[in-house]
């Protein structure tokens, strides 16, 4: 192996320099969350009785089970670990996938790897450097979260285990991305496959915890994170399972990388047509967006089916007094369990749909940064026409995805397609608002557009989490467009017009402003 790792140190420094803002921000936020949630839990539920009743209500809520799994122990530590376990694994997993692909396959795709690869950089060095940074960053935020937890009065041993378990999701998915980065020559496809694998493994954990097939949780990293059971029996050895999983995939990634060429993939590229029929900017945009969109549609269809099936069993499985009470506070005494379930889950999933819309809305900027827009815009294709060719997909992809999600969920639940799809489609203006933010940023701050848009979506997710623990109220809560969407299945349908119209106006304004700025500014290739 000597020689193949030459230059790893140089590349590590390069990565640290390129991500000098992103890494500290991510590490700081994830390191601070555990202690803040722990202290919020103490504040909100000061007595054991209060915590017990909260735990009982949560255990009776299928949406909570699907997102977070069962509660093992109703202590402050146990509730904190339950609240954050799956969220931090999701966030850490996603960030790690994006980082690993960004510093491996994306570098090769743009040809920057070639520049470095001339002799001083060993063939395994880029992957080794990316993994070193990402694994270390995950470890760091896990360890940094421990002192504040201990200072807050939680047991040290369990806190260390909890801290490490928040790192574990990142490790597992950094390793998944290391492998998918070897398979195809396209960074977009590599990223897509890794995220799809993540979604599948998360769905598997959800199914394990809602469908009465608990053993399934042992097949997925999201299950393992929960099964470490911090503050509730501390199963340290489960961390070993995650380490073995990550190590095996990393070894596989290095093995695969020796069997392919730089910039090549294991899945070979087939020759295509010698003549083109793309009818212009819109035809090109359709080609660029459709693959991703089809993948998303299949994914959301599968999620919808999972939800519909899960909702079917609710009436018999979860008709507990606590859940009745929760349902009553949300939707009145006669609210149906399934409606409460769908309302909860759609709220979270609509933000995933917003992620898909962001991919489309940021595509124009990606084309510009990669220098491809420069060539197209030297033809009679105008700025506005080019921007609109991508914007169409940012506008239409959430229509498609929310419809698929709602329709499939309704169909598999009780055939009530229109009602459930109507409820998911109510999120359309909120999702458009997120796409509008991205469009505004592409016009105004192109170099920061992707980072800031994704951060904004991440913050909306954090607002949800804080709202749930009553850490955010009033104005902060109002900042998230998702908060304003009426719950159509729980009596919100009575007067949905005002908030939906309001959000639509915001979305249209943001988008129009973004396009106006885009027409006035210089083209700025390469980030």
């Amino acid at each position, binding site marked *: 192996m000597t020689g193949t790792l030459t230059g790893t140190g140089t590349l590590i420094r390069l990565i640290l320099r390129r991500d000098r803002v992103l890494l500290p921000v991510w590490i700081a936020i994830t390191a601070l969350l555990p202690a803040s949630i722990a202290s919020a839990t103490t504040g909100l539920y000061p007595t054991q009785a209060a915590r017990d009743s909260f735990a009982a209500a949560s255990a009776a809520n299928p949406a909570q089970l699907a997102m977070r799994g069962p509660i093992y122990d109703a202590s402050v530590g146990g509730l904190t670990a339950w609240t954050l376990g799956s969220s931090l694994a999701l966030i850490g997993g996603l960030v790690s996938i994006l980082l690993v692909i960004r510093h491996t396959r994306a570098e090769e*795709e743009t040809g920057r790897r070639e520049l470095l690869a001339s002799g001083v950089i060993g063939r395994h060095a880029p992957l080794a450097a990316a993994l070193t940074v990402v694994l270390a960053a995950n470890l760091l935020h896990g360890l940094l979260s421990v002192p504040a937890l201990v200072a807050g009065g939680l047991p040290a041993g369990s806190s260390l285990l909890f801290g490490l378990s928040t790192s574990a999701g990142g490790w597992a998915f950094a390793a998944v991305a290391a492998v998918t980065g070897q398979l195809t020559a396209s960074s977009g496809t590599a990223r897509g496959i890794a995220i799809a694998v993540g979604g599948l493994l998360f769905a598997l954990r959800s199914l394990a915890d809602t469908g009465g097939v608990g053993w399934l949780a042992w097949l997925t990293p999201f299950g393992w994170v929960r099964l470490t059971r911090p503050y509730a029996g501390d199963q340290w050895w489960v961390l070993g399972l995650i380490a073995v999983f990550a190590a095996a995939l990393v070894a596989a990634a290095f093995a695969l990388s020796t069997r392919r060429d730089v910039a090549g993939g294991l899945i070979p590229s087939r020759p295509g047509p010698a003549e083109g029929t793309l009818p212009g900017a819109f035809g090109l945009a359709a080609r660029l967006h459709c693959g991703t969109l089809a993948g998303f549609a299949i994914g959301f269809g599968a999620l919808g089916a999972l939800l519909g099936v899960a909702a079917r069993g609710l009436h018999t499985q979860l008709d507990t007094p606590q859940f009745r009470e929760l349902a009553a506070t949300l939707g009145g005494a006669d609210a149906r369990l399934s409606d409460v379930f769908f309302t909860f889950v759609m709220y979270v999933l609509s933000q995933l749909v917003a992620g898909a819309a962001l991919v489309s809305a940021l595509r124009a900027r990606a084309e510009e940064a990669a220098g491809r827009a420069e060539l197209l815009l030297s*033809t009679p294709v105008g700025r506005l026409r080019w921007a609109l060719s991508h914007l169409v997909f940012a506008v239409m992809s959430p229509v498609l995805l929310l419809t698929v999600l709602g329709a499939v969920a309704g169909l598999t639940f009780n055939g009530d397609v229109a009602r459930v799809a109507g409820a998911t489609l109510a999120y359309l203006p909120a999702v458009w608002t997120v796409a509008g933010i991205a469009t505004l940023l592409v016009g105004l701050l192109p170099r920061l557009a992707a980072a800031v848009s994704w951060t904004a979506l991440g913050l909306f997710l954090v607002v949800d989490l804080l709202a749930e623990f009553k850490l955010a109220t009033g104005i902060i809560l109002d900042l998230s467009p998702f908060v304003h969407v009426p719950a159509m299945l729980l009596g919100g349908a009575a007067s949905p017009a005002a908030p939906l119209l309001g959000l639509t106006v915001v979305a249209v304004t943001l988008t129009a402003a973004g396009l106006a700025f885009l027409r006035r500014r210089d083209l700025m290739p390469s980030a």
Partner: protein
Amino acid sequence: MNAAVRARGLVKSFGRTRALDGLDLTVKTGEVHGFLGPNGAGKTTTIRILLGQMRADGGEVALLGGDPWQDATDLHRRLAYVPGDVNLWPSLTGGEVIDLLGRARGGLDPKRRAELLERFELDPRKKCRTYSKGNRQKVALVAAFASDVELLILDEPTSGLDPLMEATFNECVLREKRDGRTVLLSSHILSEVETLCDRVSIVRAGRTVESGSLADLRHLTRTSVTAELIGSAPGLAALPGVHDLSVDGARLRCQVDGDALTAVLAELARAGVRTLTTRPPTLEELFLRHYEGAAR
């Protein structure tokens, strides 16, 4: 209005970098115009302004009689561009990209397309992600040469081509010129400039330092003089326009500005000349003089 490009006093800053600092450029209709200058001189920035992709902070610019920013869409029907760094859509084949660009420019000649593909030895069925830098450049070149346009803007189009393909490129440009098209060619390759260009503009640090035909430029620059004298020529060093003077016994060498040559020869004749060699500057010397010290 017989200038395809007319730019006066262009200014463009990026933050604290002044990329263009009063640049002038005139490209006459029907000529091949060389656009030269060291790295970072501002060639690509000028071209981006001509294409309406950037707006100048100051100065005037007209392209094919129009405003490159306001009339971008209309003007782009009449020109084709090959960027210095050709980036293509990884999932499209070369043939698809050629047709996409050609169609956007109002259609291309299929016979010419086939002929160019053959001459540039380009396989149009390969995905762009598998092309080398040179092959990506060929895709953009084929699309440009097969389009029916008045003006070609080429930014270092041969930087990735092998010598054989460079020769093919030269033939293509000469053919465009015969057909009456105008070409703006940014280049660092001197032989290419010498073969193809009617006139050149040399830019340095965002300003035009020379502009004219190659013959004009040679004329304007220094001649290298070597002489063996009978007597001595003490007045030589004091003459304006004499540079790098070195005297080794009876042997003498110096560089002389074009307009100082008469005075220098008179001074030498006064001292008496045994042998005398004068040599016009080579193209390399011409460029090196402008390129030297350009690092900013």
